[in-house]
């Protein structure tokens, strides 16, 4: 059987989710954002909740998420997505409400909003993209930047004595009583993509069971900011990010 015969709707096993539109994404080649967007679209399609889902986009590379996923979106001020999402969910409790935030947004400027939305047990989902860097503004140091890691504002490598330690938000948030689920995943291999999808789906389901806030941290790459190829970025992430930001569930109140 040749390729032309196989390429037939009857044999289809994977195609782009219909929740994702055809607008080309502005992300750099190999960017983890695209995979996570795709997973969100797939989950929303599979759960059939396109009309019940409201996303809150951050400031950062994810700011344009609304262009790619055909759901209703609000774009929040830098770091304020959890406050925006809080109000949406409180006023529309039967909707699935999630924030989509990077580490600059969630772990730096929006720490207060993040901690308090989690502490209040808001029934929302945090999609937290942690690539240890400010991607959109050009690769500056973030609170999550690894010790010794180079960035444009730590060109000789992050010096913990001067610039402090890497902030592990998931480890911090798991201790809050309002949080039901904290997990750390990645999207660099087939297996990890599938695990992340299951994690996000679980978080969405929990949000409708009034169990409190769910945090799905996705340790990600930023090949432009890290100055590496996408494939090398994945290897670097495994070797350097994973020892600091270990994969797996940190909390799951079933």
């Amino acid at each position: 059987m040749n390729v032309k015969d196989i390429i037939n709707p009857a044999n289809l096993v994977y195609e782009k989710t219909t929740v994702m539109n055809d607008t080309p994404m502005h992300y750099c080649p190999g960017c983890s954002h695209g995979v996570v967007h795709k997973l969100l679209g797939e989950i929303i399609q599979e759960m059939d909740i396109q009309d019940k889902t409201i996303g809150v986009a951050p400031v950062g590379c994810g700011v344009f998420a609304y262009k790619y996923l055909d759901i209703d979106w609000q774009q929040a001020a830098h770091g304020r997505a959890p406050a925006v999402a809080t109000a949406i969910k409180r006023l529309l409790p039967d909707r699935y409400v999630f924030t989509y935030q990077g580490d600059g947004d969630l772990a730096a400027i929006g720490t207060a909003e993040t901690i308090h939305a989690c502490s209040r047990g808001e029934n929302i989902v945090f999609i937290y993209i942690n690539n240890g860097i400010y991607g959109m503004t050009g690769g500056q140091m973030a609170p999550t930047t690894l010790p010794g890691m180079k960035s444009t504002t730590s060109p000789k490598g992050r010096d913990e004595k001067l610039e402090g330690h890497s902030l592990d938000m998931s480890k911090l948030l798991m201790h809050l009583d309002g949080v039901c689920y904290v997990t750390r995943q990645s999207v660099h291999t087939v297996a990890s993509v599938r695990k992340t999808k299951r994690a996000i789906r679980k978080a969405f389901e929990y949000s409708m069971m009034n169990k409190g806030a769910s945090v799905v941290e996705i340790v990600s790459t930023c090949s432009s900011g890290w100055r590496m190829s996408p494939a090398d970025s994945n290897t670097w992430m495994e070797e350097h990010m994973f020892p600091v930001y270990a994969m797996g569930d940190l909390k799951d109140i079933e």
Partner: protein
Amino acid sequence: MSRKSDEVTLMKGNEAIAHAAVRCGCDGYFGYPITPQSEILETLMEIEPWKTTGMVVLQAESEVASINMVYGAAGCGKKSMTTSSSPGVSLMQEGISYMAGAELPGVIVNVMRGGPGLGTIQPSQADYFQATKGGGHGDYRMPVLAPASVQEMADFTVLAFDLAFKYLTPAMILADGIIGQMMEKVVLPPFTPRRSEEEIRRECPWATLGKTQDRNPNYISSLELRSEEMEKINLRLQKRYREIEKNEVRYEEIQCEDADFIFVAFGTMARVCQKAVEIAREEGLKVGLIRPITLFPYPYNRIAELSEKVKGFISVEMSAGQMVEDVRLAVSGKVPVEFYGRMGGIVPSPEEVLNALKTKLL
């Protein structure tokens, strides 16, 4: 809650805002305690509107969070509001600018206290510039209502929502600590039910209530990186502000018909100046008062008209002189425009302001 709408009650200005919000069908209140306006949040927590109208009331972790909660609620087409006092309103400026940019309706109440910095908890009017000239970044304005009584605290809560939704803009009630704290008779607005989701979908087709099959996704954003498009958005906003200026100017005149000299004052200072007008008239001095009710849009035209027939104006404010700049713009040098103000939470007496008028204008 079963009170009839024409029933007269006695309450604080802050309490009147809380009751009026519930009655006018407000969907969400998000606030953070700060003197001298904490009674608004306290009253709402006491009357528990979530049990009656379903209105959401939430004490946020900061004013920054409060205004962004208003943003989120407004993005869903919901009637939402926050209240604070000067330092807290400074923290909200980012959110107000975002709301203006994203064309979101919502109500912000500033029960002003003295600054700068942490300042004092005593009353002030020193946030006039911040409120009327766009306290946050970017070219924006918003309707600013200046209540001078507890009754107006209630009435303007309703009016501010109307203006906010009519022009898709944040709207501010700029009160001061005295109007917030003092007790007066008030007739609360009648109960209006909260809008149903169907009504919101009809009236606010842009609201993020979930993308249905029959429409494209809605998104709320103030971001536009293409310069030509961003200028278009700005031009649309400016056009709207010109509409507001054309349609929404509100002011009150007291004994201006035959006046030689006119006080210009808003809020608490208008009440003090009204008493000063009485004293002046008893002394045979033809003094009047114009009280701007909307600080944006400002009654420039009316003050310009009055400047044709009076000998002078004096702007009286609890500040170092902010509104006086708008009075001068309106008068445009035709007659003298003087200023008298006190700061630090001091409220000048009627005798004091009349004396200032006499000293500076006679």
